[in-house]
């Protein structure tokens, strides 16, 4: 008896439950964001493409120490160094950034001892010519937008330094 009445009945019931779920969803709000017009707000740490922030006067902080080049796992940074005539000082000649090799891991920013690099929030970086993926950050005209903040090496946006013993509940407030 069970097999002929209860099981089919349960089956039909389960199917109707499924229908109800989709029907309810149909009258709820969709979660789509229509991309070019509507956009998500990027969190501060979002890693977009690498930029070299500069001051109003156009100065950057890079000292050509080659840390980023050495630490980049993909070899996407190539730095040319020149020595300033008359002194032993090294100076940045050309900062070549191969965007096509970059995986946006952010190690360069992390290892930069002079806070000279940032990962911007710029993510619409598709181009139609591969040559345009070679970027000379040093001479680039794009101004670093302070609103991006980028993947910063500084611990600026983290939870305030906690004292041991403080419970998470208190910290959360």
């Amino acid at each position, binding site marked *: 008896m069970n097999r002929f009445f209860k099981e089919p009945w349960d089956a039909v019931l389960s199917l109707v439950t499924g229908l109800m779920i989709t029907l309810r969803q*149909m009258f709820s709000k*969709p979660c789509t964001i229509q991309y070019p017009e509507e956009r998500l707000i990027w969190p501060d740490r979002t890693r977009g493409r690498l930029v070299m922030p500069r001051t109003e006067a156009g100065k950057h902080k890079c000292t050509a120490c080659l840390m980023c080049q050495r630490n980049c796992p993909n070899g996407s940074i190539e730095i040319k160094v020149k020595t300033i005539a008359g002194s032993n000082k090294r100076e940045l000649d050309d900062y070549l950034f191969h965007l096509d090799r970059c995986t946006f891991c952010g190690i360069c920013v992390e290892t930069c001892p002079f806070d000279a690099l940032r990962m911007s929030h710029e993510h619409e970086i598709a181009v139609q010519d591969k040559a345009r993926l070679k970027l000379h950050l040093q001479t680039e005209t794009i101004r670093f937008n302070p609103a991006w903040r980028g993947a910063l090496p500084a611990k600026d946006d983290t939870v305030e330094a906690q004292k041991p013993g403080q419970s998470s509940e208190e910290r959360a407030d």
Partner: protein
Amino acid sequence: MNYIYDLSRIVQWTRAQLHWLADWAGTSVFWADGLGTLIVMFVLFAFCASVVMVLVYAERKIAGHMQARLGPMRVGWHGVLQVIADTIKLILKETEIPNRADRPLYRAAPYVVFVSGFLALIALPMDKNLVPVQLNVGLIYMIAIGTPGVIGILMAGWSSGNKYSLLGGMRSAAQMISYEIPLVLSLLGAVMLAKSLDLHTLVEAQKIPFVVYQPVAFFIFLISAVAETNRNPFDIPEAESELTAGFHTEYGGIRFAYFFLAEYVNMFVLSALGATVFLGGWQGPFLPGWCWYLIKTGAILFVFIWFRWTYPRLRADQLMDLSWKVLTPLAFINILVTGLILVLM
């Protein structure tokens, strides 16, 4: 009363004009009727195409909202022109034929599928006086003319020279043949009540829609109709996750468009048949008949779409089991009970 909305008057008027024209030209009424038939066919094709456009748009929108998405939004207001854009794209696309295809069959298949669905449309009574062709065996005609569609699908599956297509075609043949039987049997209950095979009479017999007397038959009809149209949860012939696209894997461009058209026309035809036989067709208060007809058909179509975007797909053998072990016996029992009640009353 509903003079303006009564489409049948337009038909009558056109017919009268044609006859007058024949009279004036001195030819026989035969030619006038022939011309009339051509016009009707043309109108029906236009109707068919617009129904499909509305359906495709509705399906995409409903699917979108059921899936917490928006569906098409870009072309026109809320994407209403999306279907037209897609159609243009499909028409303009290059039509390729695979090297190993059986060319004549490959070319013919989509049209065979489409025509069988389209021809079924002409027997449906859309309003009291709005029946393209009134046949006294309309129901049988509807069922019979829909059947060659499976040959088209089989042709497509075989001729593509693709194993996925072949599997899809075979599945489709097995499935459609199995589901014809419960489909027809479920309709028989209503026929017994109305004592007629004429769709028009069937509708007029329904002072109360037959679904009240024949709920089981309607249920069987609904399931079989979904299976007949190869739609989820019975879409094994095109089963995307298994057979990529089943029988129409290799099709593109205008030929694919015809398959697409055929699928939706079939869907419309079967829904309209259900609305006619079980839901009282064009009968209903206040609104003109063809409005009721479209509303009822639309309700069944919505259920089709609702099923598709809710359920997983059955496996081929489970599908057969459902048809032969559940639906067919159930339909027979339904006929038996209906017959007994009719005899006893």
